[in-house]
């Protein structure tokens, strides 16, 4: 072990680095690898036999005789280090010869493909991405069976050397968006990138916005669908999430499950979801505004209900609302951090016991409890986790504005949020498209989920190179042609 090629002087100190010497009657061979990364059995069974032959061997002869396809001869020191750190084994002859054979004997140790946990669905496939990039690419390749699926790999981070894969379908995806994406990833200057969400924050158009400008998903079918629409998918080794871009605001409120139900049901559910998001943002703010300033605005039929439920509450409405909202946030945060079984218990204890007790102790009104619970529930209807976080946070400025100027404050807040959304872009695509800039043809899959006969073209706001998904006219012929009423 005391003599090894100069290439490995950085690795010597690590205990998992192995450099074994094989003496021949010519120069000795050195086989080097990182034990923690390689499939040692593969190495022993297939590669070492090639070296232990009696006759004098050149490096080229060894190279030819190795029965593994993923192999190369390299002389670049950086490349050799990089490959070794990714589970390759290196074979060198002599102490000074820079020529090195690199063989891929990487061990794939990782989780097996499991069910999606964040974007759970009742119908449809139960396949989610895992941490291994190669497995994830395999899952995508299995769903997008076309030679024009392109995968570009980039390495990011001086220490972590994270592998990032950018997938798109050539001939569909707009190159302007692709170049923006590739350039932003290439420009990242950071030492350790451990998760794709970090990449996401670095390449987003406006990193100071609470609105996500790229969509994270763990569903393989959603990625396949988005790729076929002309979006770009970014994956990272070690992260079970794929991010999609460019996206618009509407996409964050579409669940992929909408596409599994009949279009009428899918559309209704989607509309309910959008209404519930608006409710979630505005409900408690309106409660504060009405009870603080606009009490005279409520009808006589409705007023007694509110007054009787609030009669013993000692706090002003805004304090009452903030306490309740914070309590809900607390429950949520506690539920997330605990194992799922305990989490459920926390939910029950917190939700039912605390809620009832708070009302009985006149800390809050029944009426408010209903509003806060409903709006908390409504914020979870958003299928994308990041967006539901955004909506939870967005509620607080509205509540404070409502306390300051009532309904006027809420309106001012609405305009401020609208302006912010108008200014946002995703890889340069306006965030509110197709509503602004108005693209009537792109609106067909936003608020409602239309039947598949209408999906004949890709959304025009993605500016795809080929917008036709199928021929509109021939696509309809699969129905029985001569069918008439009563025949």
């Amino acid at each position, binding site marked *: 072990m005391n003599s090894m090629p100069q290439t490995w002087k950085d690795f010597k100190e690590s205990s998992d680095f192995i450099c074994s010497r094989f003496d021949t009657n010519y120069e000795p061979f050195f086989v080097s690898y990182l034990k923690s990364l390689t499939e040692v059995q593969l190495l022993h069974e297939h590669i070492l036999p090639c070296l232990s032959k009696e006759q004098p061997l050149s490096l080229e002869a060894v190279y030819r005789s190795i029965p593994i396809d993923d192999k190369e001869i390299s002389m670049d020191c950086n490349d050799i280090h990089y490959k070794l750190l990714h589970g390759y084994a290196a074979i060198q002859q002599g102490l000074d010869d820079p020529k090195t054979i690199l063989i891929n004997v990487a061990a794939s140790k990782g989780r097996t493909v499991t069910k999606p946990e964040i974007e759970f669905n009742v119908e449809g496939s139960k396949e989610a991405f895992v941490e291994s990039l190669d497995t994830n690419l395999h899952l995508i390749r299995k769903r997008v069976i076309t030679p024009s699926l392109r995968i570009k790999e980039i390495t990011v981070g001086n220490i972590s050397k994270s592998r990032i894969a950018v997938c798109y379908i050539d001939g569909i995806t707009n190159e302007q968006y692709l170049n923006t994406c590739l350039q932003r990833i290439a420009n990242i200057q950071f030492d350790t990138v451990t998760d794709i969400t970090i990449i996401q924050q670095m390449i987003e158009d406006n990193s100071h916005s609470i609105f996500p400008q790229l969509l994270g998903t763990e569903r393989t079918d959603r990625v396949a669908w988005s790729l076929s629409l002309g979006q770009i998918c970014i994956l990272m080794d070690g992260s079970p999430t794929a991010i999609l871009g460019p996206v618009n605001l509407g996409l964050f409120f579409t669940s992929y499950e909408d596409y599994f139900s009949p279009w009428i049901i899918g559309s209704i559910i989607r509309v309910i979801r959008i209404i519930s998001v608006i409710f979630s943002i505005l409900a408690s703010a309106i409660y504060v505004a009405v009870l603080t*300033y*606009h009490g*005279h*605005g*409520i*009808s*006589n*039929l*409705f007023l007694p209900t509110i007054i009787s439920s609030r009669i013993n509450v000692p706090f002003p409405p805004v304090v009452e609302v903030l306490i309740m909202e914070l309590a809900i946030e607390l429950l949520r945060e506690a539920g997330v951090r605990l194992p799922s079984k305990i989490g459920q218990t926390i939910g029950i204890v917190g939700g039912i016991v605390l809620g009832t007790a708070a009302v009985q102790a006149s800390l809050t009104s029944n009426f408010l409890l209903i509003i806060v619970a409903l709006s908390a529930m409504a914020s979870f209807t958003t299928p994308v986790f990041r967006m539901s976080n955004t909506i939870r946070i967005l509620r607080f400025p509205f509540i404070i504005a409502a306390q300051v*100027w*009532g*309904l*006027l404050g809420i*309106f*001012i807040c609405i*305009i*401020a949020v*609208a*302006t*912010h959304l*108008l*200014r946002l872009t995703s890889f340069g695509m306006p965030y*509110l498209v197709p509503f*602004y*800039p*108005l693209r009537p043809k792109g609106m067909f899959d936003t608020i409602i989920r239309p039947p598949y006969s209408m999906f004949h073209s890709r959304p025009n706001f993605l500016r795809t190179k080929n917008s036709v998904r199928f021929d509109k006219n021939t696509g309809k012929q699969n129905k029985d042609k001569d069918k008439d009423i009563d025949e």
Partner: protein
Amino acid sequence: MIPSVNERYTVSPFLLFVIIQSMQFGLRILFMAIKPIELAGQDAWISVLLSAFSIHLVIWMMYRILNHNKTDLIQIHKLFFGKWAGNALNLFFILYYLLNAAHQIRYFIEVIQVWVFPDIETWILALVLLLLVYYIIAGGFRVIVGICLLSFVNTFLFLFMLFTAPYFHFHNLLPILNHSPGEILEASRALTFSYAGVEILFFCYTFIKTPQKSEKWAHLANISITILYLAEIIFSLLLFKQEQLSTEIWPGLTKYQFVQFPFIERFEFIGASATLFRLFPIVCLCIWASSRIMKYTFSVKQSKVLPFFLLAVFVAVCLIPNRIGIQFVQRWLENIGLHLIYLYIPFLFIFDLIRTKARKTA
């Protein structure tokens, strides 16, 4: 010399509809019915039609000037009248738009002080509104137009006027034509202020993707405004006696008192707060236009000039003390608007014609 606008910053021609509509609409709908009805009584609707017709003519003239020179008014001024006189005219437009913005904001604050929050301080509300205006304008023209589009939704609030239907007195509309042509024309003149705002076309022309094709949208905007104004005038006539109306300040808001829902007792505080959506487009467009004129007249950066203009508007808003002050400013703006639309634009039109004729013969 002609500043071309990068296509990334231009908007589709149909959005001109929204721009012109929100520029004309403003907060004027709240009080626009009083004066014409005072002057022409139940014949005020004829005045609305007359004004609308004349504004169509003005839009036509504006398009002839703009299409002919293929640039905005800032450059046309320099082209027609030379550097000094052109810049002086541009400076006048800057002041006009800033005053307009200040008036709109002060007017809105007045509405809020009367209808919603009697104790609210003028300066604090003005400060918050102007900070938001800064955020909008800093986003560029497209964002401003987006806000216009959002405020367009507010027009549907107008549909709540239908709640007033049970209280209509149709005999209020009769007899037709018992006012002299002079009175009707006088009412038309009073209406000009409600139609002023079309001159924004002069400045946003270069920001339209295919400006030559946008003319129909400008006319459509004017038609839609006319329909709204007609509805407003006729609803006012149907609901109020004429003597009653003269004691009203904002009949547009009073009408919301007729609106009733099972759970909302008084709708007018919603209506009054929602005028906010009407305020923002007009203020943003005014300040945007003045900062843009500044940019091309004195070659300074728009982003540098914007805070100073907002500060100027803020000071102006704070200096207008009360209702009397607002009406004083309003009379000034009415006069400027009237001369701008019926004297200056036709003058430019004729000047342009003569200029091209002279060039051809020379």
